[in-house]
């Protein structure tokens, strides 16, 4: 059947009636409510700022930088979600655990490097080693998961691989809990060359944040090059567009999908190192919430759209970092730091309900578009 207009999906985006149903009214109420809350919070914060109360400019600067570096990390994680969704059409719940595994095993190597002195003596090499270890572990886990759990489910209704990935996520979490124990392990303190701050445009920026952001940018450039300029990258894009036709053109679809998972895993490994630099503590549960936030970022940027994923990540990081103080504190809500996650989840809900195609446009394959 040719995909002419006559046979165009009698489904796809079913635009509902123009007459407002009460569902529409409800949704509008939420929109308006959200706008009011955000606006009121902003106004509150601005007036506080003018009055000299509330956080200082320097503190805002800190928050913005922190938000950017966290956002960079979310962006790298989001790439994995975006790529898998673009190619296979499902949410890989277990990607957060792929990230965690890199961070955990990286911790082992970091610890070892620390105990034999190399950590501080040769910081760049040490970090590089940890990076490689983390990337390797994450990639390995991602590829194994694809092979064992997802490969047989190609072509199943979308919810089945999603549920499977939830199972995988739990399995991995508790495997690591069993192997490494349930406690939080702390990476050694960043080597002295990375501690402290650097002055950028007259603004003190923590060196670790700078490092994280630069690593993210480099990774992104590397990935962009890989996807647009190499043969494998082209194959990935073809498979994402239409698996069947790509196969008919001679592309090894299985191998390409493995590559997609591997690349996503590698990026998650880098993100693992970033987590280590930013937060230092890892446990078996570390991957879960960042994973969900990274998925939010991926949708925010437009699922399947790699540049969008990065952008969505940065936006989400900023929103999460600055939002609680900016909006909630402006409204006079106490204890805003606890509510950081609420802000992130609220962003998740708002994005998915009101703008599921994302800010930069989603890119789905032909099967998912149908």
């Amino acid at each position: 059947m040719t995909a002419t207009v006559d046979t165009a999906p009698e489904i796809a985006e079913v635009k509902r009636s123009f007459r407002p149903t009460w569902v529409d009214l409800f949704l509008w109420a939420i929109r308006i409510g959200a706008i009011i809350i955000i606006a009121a919070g902003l106004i509150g914060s601005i007036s506080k700022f003018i009055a000299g109360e509330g956080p200082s400019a320097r503190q805002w600067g800190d928050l913005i930088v922190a938000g950017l570096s966290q956002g960079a990390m979310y962006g790298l994680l989001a790439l994995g979600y975006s790529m898998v969704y673009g190619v296979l059409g499902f949410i890989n719940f277990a990607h957060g655990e792929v990230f965690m595994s890199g961070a955990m095993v990286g911790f082992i190597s970091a610890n070892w490097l620390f105990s034999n002195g190399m950590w501080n003596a040769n910081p760049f090499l040490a970090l590089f080693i940890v990076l490689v270890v983390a990337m390797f572990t994450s990639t390995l886990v991602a590829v194994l998961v694809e092979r064992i759990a997802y490969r047989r489910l190609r072509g199943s209704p979308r919810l089945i691989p999603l549920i499977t990935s939830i199972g995988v996520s739990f399995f991995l979490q508790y495997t690591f809990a069993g192997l490494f124990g349930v406690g939080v392990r702390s990476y050694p303190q960043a080597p002295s060359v990375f501690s402290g701050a650097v002055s950028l445009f007259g603004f003190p920026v923590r060196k670790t944040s700078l490092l994280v952001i630069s690593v993210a940018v480099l990774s992104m450039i590397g990935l962009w090059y890989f996807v647009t300029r190499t043969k494998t990258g082209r194959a990935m894009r073809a498979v994402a567009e239409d698996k069947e036709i790509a196969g008919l053109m001679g592309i090894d679809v299985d191998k390409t999908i493995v590559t997609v998972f591997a690349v996503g895993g590698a990026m998650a490994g880098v993100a693992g190192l970033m987590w280590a630099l930013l937060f230092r503590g890892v446990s078996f549960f570390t991957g879960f919430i960042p994973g969900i936030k990274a998925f939010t970022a991926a949708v925010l940027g437009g699922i399947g759209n790699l540049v969008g994923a990065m952008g969505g990540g940065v936006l989400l990081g900023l929103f999460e970092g600055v939002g609680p103080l900016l909006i909630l504190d402006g409204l006079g809500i106490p204890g805003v730091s606890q509510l950081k996650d609420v802000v992130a989840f609220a962003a998740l809900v708002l994005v998915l309900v009101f703008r599921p195609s994302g800010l930069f446009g989603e890119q789905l394959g032909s099967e998912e578009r149908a």
Partner: protein
Amino acid sequence: MALLETKGLKKSFGGLQAIGGVDFTIDEGEIVSVIGPNGAGKTSFFNVISGLFPPDEGRIIFEGVDIAGHAPSQITKAGIARTFQNVRLFPNLTVLENVKVGQHCRTHRGMFGAIFQTPAFRKEEREIEEKAKEILSFFGSRLVGYRFDQPAFVLSYANRRRLEIARAMATEPTLLLLDEPTAGMNPRETVELTELIGKLRSEKGFTVVMIEHDMRVVGEVSDRVVVLDHGVKIAEGSYQHVSTNEHVIEAYLGRPAEEKQA
């Protein structure tokens, strides 16, 4: 007053204009066929009328009310039912259940009745069951007896089409939109279904609009034929008139070669 009337109906998908201004009327009790080459916009026409997509422009007036842009379930409730080009049943529900679902918009009992098994609920369930069986009996012995409890996916292709029509009938429509009802059927089945379409009007009183490619069916059963091409109506009239119309022939077969050189 016409049962259904569209005025200046337009619909585009992205950059592609599927329907470019169609005026269409049908009176109660008529059987009208809509024909045209592939890509003419016929199914899109059905989709817009049945509410799957709102039109960009134009009005759709059904029994005096403009239904453009209403939700599909509301339009079904108003009295327009349709079948799909690629039969879309509920594959894992039984034959009987498929038809019962069709009655959903005409029945009322809700959760309370179901949980407490009120007499009103039980009465309605009985009525639903009887009505479903009655509708299925319209198709002779094809969909009765042991068939009732068979899941829909075991049915043969022709039976699936019949079941889809049965389901549409269950919504108690005034107007039936049949999208290529005989597609994929062998000659014997086609003849049977053609008779059936006639009976839908004569015995059940439905008004029927039918998209068809098989001209024998069209000639056999239609009162009137409307021809669409590239989203616009290019001819209308009896089958005799339309089948000899040069624009229609050109739309299907193209222009003779000599003219192109001119």
